[in-house]
């Protein structure tokens, strides 16, 4: 397969472009996604190509966005709706839990094939209202598939699968990943939902990392290699449903686990992965599963303070070394 180098941003743009071209029922809407092409320019060019009924800017009204996407999906479209920053997903959570997720289970025979695109993550000097990672809230809602790709390859292929899938899918991007580059095939391909991906093989410690934390974990793994520690980095890619088999296989080999998640520590997805892993792999574990997360603190603005909040390479290394004491 011929490969090409694209950014994470372009990869997502391509997926949207191709799926909208393939299927006239795919529509895309949200705040500033149309004329301007999105505040992160992810949806650039789509309105021009597909017109104002299929790609459009909306009023600032996140509950209506989520609800309208749900209704549109019920009535025959395949909407991709954008909530610009995950920080304000709270405005849409009632719609998500009481409409989107309720409908397929209770209203038998009705499907809700929508994709909720949003982005989280810090590191942008955005202070506490533009940097939160609240995937734990969405993750707790039954019937929603939750994906958090970390590479351009996964992002494109997975978004295409998400659009074609008949379940509501939350597709969570990371603002700091948009400019990162990676290889993707020239032609059509998809990445299946629900499959983890081993981003690096290793034998001493399994690091299960989400979204941008995969990138940080790979950096940590590289540095640890020099110290003679072999780290396996597993990226669940889809966090719900979780590909526990791939994780368990890795743990069987390494007997040590670090879970990395850029989110408030208490009640994070990292906790849930930890609970699941210890349940399934208890006898394989040499010591406790360690979690690298952000603290339970709002993300402060000052660059001098942001560093205390951010999880990343160094904290991951520390945790791996801690594990190695077992």
């Amino acid at each position, binding site marked *: 397969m011929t490969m090409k180098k694209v950014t994470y941003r372009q990869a997502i743009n391509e997926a949207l472009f191709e799926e909208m071209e393939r299927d006239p029922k795919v*529509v895309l809407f949200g705040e500033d996604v149309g004329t301007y092409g999105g505040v992160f320019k992810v949806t650039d060019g789509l309105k021009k190509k597909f017109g104002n009924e299929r790609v459009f800017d909306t009023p600032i009204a996140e509950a209506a966005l989520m*609800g309208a996407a749900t209704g549109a999906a019920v009535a025959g479209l395949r909407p991709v709706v954008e909530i610009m920053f995950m920080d304000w997903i709270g405005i849409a959570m009632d719609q998500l839990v*009481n*409409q989107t997720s309720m409908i397929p289970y209770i209203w038998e025979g009705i499907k809700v*094939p929508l994709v909720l695109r949003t982005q989280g993550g810090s590191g942008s000097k955005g202070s506490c209202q533009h940097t939160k990672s609240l995937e734990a809230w969405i993750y707790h809602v039954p019937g929603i598939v939750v994906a958090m790709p970390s590479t351009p390859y996964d992002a494109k292929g997975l978004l295409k699968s998400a659009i074609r899938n008949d379940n509501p899918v939350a597709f969570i991007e990371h603002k700091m990943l948009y400019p990162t580059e990676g290889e993707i095939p020239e032609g059509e391909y998809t990445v299946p939902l629900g499959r983890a991906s081993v981003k690096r093989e290793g034998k001493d410690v399994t690091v299960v990392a989400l979204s941008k934390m995969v990138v940080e974990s790979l950096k940590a793994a590289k540095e640890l290699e020099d110290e003679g520690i072999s780290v396996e980095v597993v990226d669940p890619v889809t966090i719900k449903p979780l590909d526990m088999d791939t994780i368990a296989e890795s743990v069987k080999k390494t007997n040590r686990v670090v879970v990395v998640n850029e989110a408030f520590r208490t009640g994070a997805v990292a906790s849930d992965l930890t609970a699941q892993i210890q349940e399934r792999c208890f006898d394989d574990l040499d010591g406790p599963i360690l979690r690298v997360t952000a603290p339970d603190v709002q993300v402060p603005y000052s660059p001098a303070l942001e560093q205390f909040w951010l999880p990343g390479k160094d904290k991951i290394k520390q945790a791996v070394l801690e594990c190695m004491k077992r």
Partner: protein
Amino acid sequence: MSEVSLSREKLVDMYRKMWLARHHDVWVEDMKTKGQILGSMHLATGQEAVSVGACAPLNDDDYTMHTHREHQQLIAKGADIGRMAGDMLGKVTGCARGKGGHMLLFDKDVHALGACGIVGGGVPVAVGYAMAFKVLGTKQVSLAFFGDGAANEGSVHEAMNFAAVRKYPIIFLCENNRWGLTCPQHEQAAVEDLADRARGYGIPGVTVNGNDVLAVYEAVKLAVDRARAGDGPSMVECQTWRMRGMGFGDTMEYVPKEYLEEGSRQDPICLFEKKLVEKGILTVEEARAIEAETKKTIEDAYEAAKNAPNPDESVFWANVYAAEIC
């Protein structure tokens, strides 16, 4: 009372539906009293003209979004009484195979999609239906019922404004019975006619006597025609009386006697019958026959539902996800 030039057939059908709706709520009230239905119960006895008048201008393939006080609305839309009874009793014969119960009724055959126990929560979803109709170029319309209490939820505001901007084919049907649970309208809004809000969205808004089925019909018909013609949404406020409590078992000491007395004087079925008889459209004997026949329909439906089987564990696990994931 308004004059409308409708066929005898249509008028009699509306009259019949009003009786069906009335008998339904009287019947389930009785069952509830006997402990034969579990959970909450919101009755619309005395509000039949709103539901029937609002649904009469709609086609089967127009979509309706309902409230938590929705039985009559579904009957007005033409929902199958037998399946409804199944859902009300949690039986496998219901559309939801018993999963939804009294507050989540739906019937996809007539596009009653569907009830919502979250006050105001369904309205954005109904905007999504209208979005799909516009994008797909069908001539369907969407009609969203909501209460006077619901009008104060942010979701309703966002939805109305969204639809107005996008000129989606939707009717916002406010069923104003002047109460939200135990709280009178004047403690929920400082405005008499909620239709005044329409102007703030740049859409037409009218207030009609919600106990006059023909007045409701007329106002909604105009709004439906507008919507089908591509002229966008309208709001129709129907002022009516809530003759039952906030739920079952509520003794309504907080409701002024005068309100209930006036509501009794304005019984919508009596008013409509008088008119039909005066105009020679119906004889009193025919009216009594319809009253009796519709009662039997309800009785039979509930008798059958009582004897229907319960859903089993396979139903519980069905549609946890709406579709295959990978």
